[in-house]
Structure formats: structure tokens, C-alpha cells
């Protein structure tokens, strides 16, 4: 298990991290979300040891994370970078050996990971000659080539085409489910986070404001919302019932917020009385909606 415990960090007068704590268990995929400048990258860089925390610790498998253990992490930084003039596979072999993999193992493994990511035919090309999407895949390969014990990826999906996204989703699932690797990645593509993450950590102004499974997040924010579509009714058919409020409406369709004491069945009766009910069901907030609510305060 990777644990970030009470991380603090300032840059001059700017407080980047103000007590960030969360953990990533073996075999779990954790989505790290938050607005720009909320502290995602800073937290990840501290976990990787490329940045020092002012206060707080990072623990790995129960003890303080040290250099030899960290060397076996896989990292994809926010600012991408490989040697522009070095050939792709040669570069992966080099990086794998830096991470402690013997050369004899690194050569076949680098070919394998390039194959998985669909850039095998570019393995002898210089990085600078690759398209942006393929550079991104090479960067991912660099994070994965040494069979890392733990994966920390900063915006791994940005810049990937839909096929690349699918491949990466498969790879991350394979790492977590298959190899039991803890995976944490940041992303602004919240639908994606919702789809593949076991847990979500939401950070804002350098603090973790929400964390848990998607379901737990929903439960914590759940409001009673109903989506109702009634054909042939007046726009304000529900207004006779106190405790209802339209959150959104369009074209015979309305999303209602119900006060705690309002019975859903009463609403249904009313709708049927008003016209033909085409659609009637609860609205589950998406991660994006939860995100907006949290950020809006």
C-alpha cells in the first residue's frame, strides 16, 4: 500500500499542499482529480521523490518510502520528456536498467511493452520523429517497461486517441488486477475516471476534499433528483406539490429536486394526472457534477 500522509508544501507564498493524505491499496486504481493548480502534480512529484515535502511522509508497504523502493516505481510526469534523439527501444532499455532491471531482461521486455501499446513498428525510430500520440505511448512505455511495483501517472490519458485510451485502460486494469500493482493517476477526463477507477480522490486548494469509491462519493452528495418526461402536460404541472423544485427543464422533460418529506409516488400520481408519462426515474449525479459542486463550494 502506498500512503501519502499529511503532505505540506509551499512555493514561496503559495501554499501548494495543505495536508494531503490518501492511500492506494495493492491492486486498486485510484483516480486523482481536482481543478488545475489544486496540488495533484505536486503530490505526485513528492511521492516520486523528485520534490521534497516541507512536512509529511510517504510510506510504502508499511515503512517510509526509500530510494531503492522508489526506484521500482513507474512514473509518467505531467511534463513529458524522453531523449529526443535516442531510438525508442534503446531508450526504454536504458530507462529499465536505471530502474534496476538487468539488461538481458530489459531488451525483450521493452519490445513486449511497445507491442502492447501498439508502437512496436516504431521501436527503432528516434523519439523526435514520432507523432505526438506515439510519443505519448513511448512515454507510457517508459513508465511501464521495468514492471513497476507501483504506478503513478500524471494525466496519462491526455493526448491519446480513443484507441490509445482503450489500450491504456486495458493496461492499467492489467497492472492492477493482474499484477496487483497500486495505480494512481490524475485526469480531467472524469467520465473515464468514473469508468475505470475503484476509488477517487478529489483535491482542491491543496486539500483532499472527497475520497472513496464512486458510490461513496455519490452517497455523500446524493440529493433526491427525479427525471420526468410527461407528454401533453403544462410546464408547471408539478408546482401544486410543495417541496418540489425544477433543477433543469426542457421540452416536456424536467429534473426535479425533492425535499426530504416528499413522496415519490405522489409525484408519479400527479404526473400521470397531468399527461402521458414517458420517463420517470432517479437521477444519479455524474462525477463531473459532483466535481463541479465541490469546486463551486
Amino acid at each position: 500500500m502506498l500512503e501519502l500522509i499529511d503532505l505540506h508544501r509551499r512555493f514561496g507564498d503559495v501554499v501548494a499542499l495543505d495536508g494531503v493524505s490518501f492511500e492506494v491499496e495493492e491492486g486498486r486504481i485510484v483516480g486523482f482529480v481536482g481543478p488545475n493548480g489544486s496540488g495533484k502534480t505536486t503530490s505526485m512529484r513528492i511521492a516520486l521523490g523528485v520534490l521534497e515535502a516541507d512536512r509529511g511522509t510517504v510510506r510504502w508497504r508499511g515503512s517510509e518510502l526509500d530510494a531503492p523502493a522508489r526506484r521500482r516505481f513507474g512514473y509518467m510526469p505531467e511534463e513529458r520528456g524522453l531523449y529526443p534523439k535516442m531510438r525508442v527501444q534503446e531508450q526504454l532499455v536504458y530507462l529499465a536498467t536505471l530502474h534496476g532491471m538487468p539488461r538481458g531482461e530489459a531488451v525483450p521486455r521493452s519490445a513486449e511493452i511497445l507491442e502492447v501499446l501498439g508502437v512496436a513498428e516504431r521501436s527503432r525510430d528516434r523519439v523526435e520523429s514520432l507523432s505526438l500520440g506515439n510519443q505519448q505511448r513511448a512515454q507510457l512505455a517508459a513508465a511501464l517497461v521495468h514492471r513497476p511495483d507501483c504506478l503513478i501517472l500524471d494525466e496519462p490519458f491526455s493526448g491519446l486517441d480513443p484507441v490509445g485510451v482503450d489500450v491504456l485502460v486495458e493496461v492499467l486494469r492489467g497492472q492492477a488486477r493482474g499484477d496487483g500493482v497500486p495505480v494512481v493517476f490524475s485526469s480531467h477526463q472524469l467520465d473515464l475516471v468514473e469508468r475505470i477507477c475503484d476509488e477517487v480522490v478529489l483535491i482542491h486548494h491543496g486539500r483532499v476534499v472527497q475520497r472513496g469509491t464512486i458510490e461513496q462519493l455519490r452517497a455523500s452528495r446524493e440529493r433526491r433528483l427525479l427525471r420526468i418526461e410527461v407528454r401533453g402536460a403544462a410546464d408547471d404541472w408539478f408546482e401544486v406539490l410543495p417541496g418540489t423544485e425544477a433543477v433543469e427543464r426542457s421540452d416536456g422533460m424536467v429534473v426535479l429536486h425533492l425535499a426530504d418529506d416528499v413522496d415519490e409516488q405522489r409525484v408519479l400520481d400527479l404526473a400521470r394526472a397531468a399527461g402521458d408519462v414517458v420517463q420517470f426515474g432517479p437521477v444519479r449525479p455524474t462525477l463531473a457534477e459532483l466535481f463541479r459542486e465541490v469546486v463551486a463550494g
Partner: protein
Amino acid sequence: MTDRSASDRGSWRLVARRDFWVRLRDRGFLISTIITLSVLSVLIVLRAVGGESQPSYDLGGIGGERLAQQAAAFGDALQPKVRITVHTYDDLAAAEAAVRAGEVDAAMAGDELIGDASVPGQLRQIVQGVAVADRIAAMLDRYDVTPEDRAAILSDEDPLDVRTLEAVDEDRDENGAYAFIGVLLLYGQLFGYGVWIATGVIEEKSSRVVEILLAAIRPRQLMAGKIVGIGLLGLAQLVVIAIFAIALALILGALPASETPVAIALLVIGWFVLGFAFYAGLFAVAGSLVSRMEELQNALTPLNLVILVSFFISIGALESPDSTLSVVASILPFSSALAMPVRMALGAAEAWQVALAVLLLLGGIAVLIPLSGRLYAGAILRTGGRVKLKDAWRAQA
């Protein structure tokens, strides 16, 4: 799974290996090697050709062939050497025809020395001198001079001892030429490979690859590996150049076969290692302070200046190796790597000066390497504009 939990203390070796091989295959390296070898070849060939422009003559002989051979031997013994090649002809007519055709510069026949329009002055002096000696020998024989006395008179080529008022190493001019080439190479190698370290650091910084490198290994390991890898390449190139130059010079006959050029090559190589170790960390720091290649020139200016001034002082030391400036520069660690080998090559450095210079340089290395390691580590991950030394220092408190 293999056990890979070993510590990362050896990762500088991986870095060094990459930096060595990547640059070995770099076109810039190839070009710089070719240019250096070409320039040296030109210098050596010029010197070899210059050696051939020493006077040489063709001398024909009939009856006076014995004297012609003596003249050739005498020319060989002269300093500088005068080469006389003897051609034998059957009769006077054949000899005259050869002179007329320009096959020989002159021909000896009996008591005559035959030239076309004239006989070249130096050849004439040598032949006449030999003839005079021959007559004296004949006369000595007639007066029953003992063979010992005869030999004492005729075989003593330098009857007078030469004494100069100023004591000068006879080989100084010759060694000065080697030292000049040596200091030129040293300067090019120290500065060129230093700049290569700085650009290597910037390459990693500006491409941002440094972030994933530093997630795997520590900054000091990265810096040490880079210095060792590039330094070894510089050393290898220097060794290749030295072997090439000495071999070419020997083959072309531009050098007398002596151990001096080898000794000077070893001096250059040894001082390169010391000087590079001294400057390399500073070049790495200069690279780590900036984020783009365009800014490098500025960051390198102080270092550039120190090395350039040392170079000029060393060139001056070729002329006056014992001047106060030369002596001081050859001892101070900032300049000793360039100035001391010059003074050593000229035989002007005293043992205590060499020992002190090496000691100070080693001390300088011992101080500078950890110092630059700290500055480098503090600056390498900071992007956007130039990093101040003060901030780099504090970042690693």
C-alpha cells in the same frame, strides 16, 4: 521475478555508459575527431616535407669514386645533414652526359670536379674539403706519422668544444613544438568536452527527461555518470589522437625515434584527466542553471574566460617558462592543467612545483565535485528562466 532490490549506488555507471556510447556515435564527435586528426596530419606532413627540403645532391664518379663516397659520408655526418647520393659512370663521356642531362649535380673524374654551368656551392665545399683531407692524409703517410696521431688529426670531426654563455636545454626548441601541440590539444579537449557536459545537462533539462531519470536515480549519480562517460570519451579520443600522431610522424620520418613525444603525450593525457575532473563539475552546474541551449553561452562565460586566460598564459609559458606568471599559473589549480604540462615539457618545472600543483589540483577537485553536486541537484529540476546560484545552493540545504 529477478531480485532488483539492490541499491542504486552503481547507477552512475549506466549513465556513464549511455553518455559515452551515444556521443561516440554522434556525428559531431566524428567530425571533431576527423578535424583534429586532419590538422595534426597536415602539421606532421609539413614537418616531414620540411625535413626533406634539407639539401641533397647527386654526385657522379669515375676515377674519384672513393672520394665521392667519402664526400657522401661527410655530408651524412654534418649537422644539419646533407645527403649526397653517388652515381657511378663508366667513362668521362658518360659522366659529362649525365651532368649535362641534369641527372647529377656534379661529377668527379680524376682531379676534376665537373659541373654543368656551375657546381652548387655547398656540394663544392664538401667535395673540396674531402679532397683536402685526402691530400693531408697522403702527406701524413709520407712522413711516417703513427696511425694513432693520424687518426687523432683526421677523425676528430669537432676539434673545438662548443660552449654557450647561457645554459639552455638543447632540446628545448624541439620540445617546445611538441608542447605547443600538446597544450593546443589540452585546451580543445578540456573546453570542448566541458561544453559537452553542459549541453548534455541542458538536453536532459530542456527535454524534461530529467524528471523520469530523477524518479529512478539521484541527481549526484546522474551528474557523476555524465562526467565520467563524457570524460572517458575525451580521454579515449586523446589517446587515439596521440597514437595516431606519433605513429604517423614516425612513419613519415618527421620525428627522430625518441621517447620525448611519448612522454609529452603521457603528460597531456595525465593533465587532461586532472584538469577535466577539476572543471567538469562546474560545466555541469553551468548547464543545470539554464533551461535552454540559447542561454548556455552566458552561463559559460566565467568558465570560458578562466580556461581561455589559462591557455594564453600557457602559450606565453612556451617562450618564458620561468617567468613569475608562468610559474604561478602552473601551480594554481585554475590554470595548472594547461600551464604545468608546458613547463614540464620544456624541462623548466621543478619537482616541488609539480608536486604542489598536483596536490592543489587534487584538493580543488575534492572541494569542487561535492560543491557542484549540491548546486546541480538544487538547480536541475527548476525550469523557466535562469536559476540563481544562491537558490540552487539553498534548495539542497
